[in-house]
């Protein structure tokens, strides 16, 4: 799970002696962990083995919720598929887009700060309802996008009504808000020592070679971090699907997060909802573990340098 423990490069030696002090720095977080996090976390685990309904009543039912989820609930299988698709569409595209734009904007020209800020504006609105409304309006059957398609002599698309497109249209909204990843990449790019590029120049490396051999390894910790975070977020996210399509049409945008939310707060089945959330949790843990496993192969850390 850990990314840093095994490296015992010279840089860490001085800190070895200060074992105890670390707890002091960690104290606020530890207090928060015990005081604020444990109870809700384990409550929800407990709920997942009960038939807890918000409308009253809680009985221990063992694994029934999980059994029902995997063997009986057709919605769950659909939602699982939709969630995986959603994650596979949004995460790689969002990261690629963020990285490409960050690379593009990582130059010293006049007004570059202003330009970066402008590029970030779409992300400022976050999960705002207005943006969801805006997206909905733009992709309506007679909305702006279809008007553009018509102007280009392309056939119109029912972005919200056609179950083949609804999920992708929602993903486009997520990808469009690539700003926070872009900011992270920009900050990381700034940290790449100029000497490395100069050295590469002397070696006569081309732009692509520099990107692959200098830039990518240097910012790989941040790419890794962003990848993990975006994946976790994508597997849980449901806001835009909730506001725009409410899971439809034909449940093609009914992601797990939304199913969980509906079970918990529309149907009051908090026990069942908790079991869904622990399944999502398990999924995320597995994916994250795999990513961490893979990280030693491609994530480069400063102190590993020979």
């Amino acid at each position, binding site marked *: *799970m*850990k990314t*840093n423990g095994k490296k015992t490069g010279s*840089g*860490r030696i*001085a*800190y070895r002696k200060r*074992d105890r*002090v*670390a707890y002091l720095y*960690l104290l*606020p*977080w*530890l207090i*928060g962990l015990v005081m*604020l*996090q444990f*109870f*809700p*976390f384990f*409550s*929800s685990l407990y709920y997942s083995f009960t038939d807890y309904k918000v409308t009253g009543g809680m009985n221990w039912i063992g694994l029934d919720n999980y059994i029902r989820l995997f063997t009986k609930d057709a919605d769950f299988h659909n939602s699982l598929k939709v969630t995986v698709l959603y994650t596979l569409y949004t995460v790689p595209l969002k990261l690629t887009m963020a990285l490409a734009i960050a690379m*593009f*904007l990582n130059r010293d*020209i006049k007004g570059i700060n202003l330009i*970066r800020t402008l*590029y970030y*504006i779409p992300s*400022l609105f*976050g*999960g705002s*309802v*207005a*943006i969801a*409304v805006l997206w909905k*309006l*733009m992709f309506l059957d007679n*909305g*702006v996008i279809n008007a553009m398609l018509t102007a280009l002599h392309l056939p119109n698309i029912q972005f919200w009504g056609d179950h083949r497109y609804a999920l992708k249209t929602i993903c486009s909204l997520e990808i469009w808000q690539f700003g926070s990843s872009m*900011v992270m990449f920009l*900050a990381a790019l*700034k*940290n790449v*020592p*100029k000497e490395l590029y100069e050295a590469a120049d002397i070696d006569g490396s081309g732009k692509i070679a520099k990107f692959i051999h200098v830039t990518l390894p240097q910012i790989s910790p*941040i790419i890794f*971090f962003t990848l*993990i975070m975006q994946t976790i977020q994508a597997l*849980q996210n449901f806001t835009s699907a909730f506001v725009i399509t409410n899971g439809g049409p034909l449940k093609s945008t009914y992601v797990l*997060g939304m199913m*969980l939310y509906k079970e*918990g*707060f529309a149907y009051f089945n*908090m026990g069942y909802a908790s079991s869904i*959330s622990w399944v999502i*949790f398990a999924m995320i*843990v597995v994916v994250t573990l795999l990513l961490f496993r893979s990280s030693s192969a491609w994530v480069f*850390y*400063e*102190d590993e340098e020979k």
Partner: protein
Amino acid sequence: MLAKRKNKTVNRVFTYLLIAVIGLALLYPIIWMFFASFKTNEEIYGSTRLLPAGFSFHNFVDGWKGNGVYTYARYFFNTFKLVIPVTLLTLVSSTLAAYAFERFRFRGKNILFAVMIALLMLPNSVLMIPRYSMYSGWGWINTYLPFYVPAALASNSFFIYMLVQFLHGIPGELDESACIDGCGSFRILVQILLPLMKPALFSAGLFQFMWTYNDYLNQLIFINSGEKYTVSLALRMSLDAEAIVNWGKVMAISFIAVLPLMILFFAAQKYFVEGIATSGLKG
């Protein structure tokens, strides 16, 4: 020589052109949204025209007035009262925790690190009820404590992990060599690392500011009385589906709501992704 310079100029013009084209494509929805705030519903639906028939600011004026009980001035005041402490507290507590995780070796580190990451992975919906029960038992409901205290206790692992990753990028030799003789670890953090972490801290601060600002559900659940409402709550109230929706006004209010964020980002653009002085960083 001249050809080279000319080449450079062409290059530069080309770069700006490209930036403009991409920027326009990215910002088009926002531009459209801005002009939509001057439009009537009839103009918004089914029309591809960008510019409105007329520029009247009454949607903005009406929007600012809010629901007639409090204006947006009040909501902005509340929002800042909520968001600014949360942002600062998050930065302090997360930096301390990240420092501990990244620069120290201590017993139980691996497990605690795993726990820290794991806390990000459980979807929020099911945590709401137990969390609410707990806070209400402590009398925190209808105060901003459900926001302040978790921030002070670094409860959002995202920021810890983010800062850990950035600290990774700063070579350990640096803090040592700069403070060779008996420099306390706290001084290393404050004098050496913090200045180097500035871009990361700025990003983290901006994210936390923005997310807290835009967050709806938590504010809805924990805040009850209208006098403590934030922009995010007021905005959602203005959009209530039961009323007849005037989309132009919705867009106008959304713009008013996002305006402070824009101002903040423009004001902070200098620090936005300000690089650390990379020269000399690698000894």
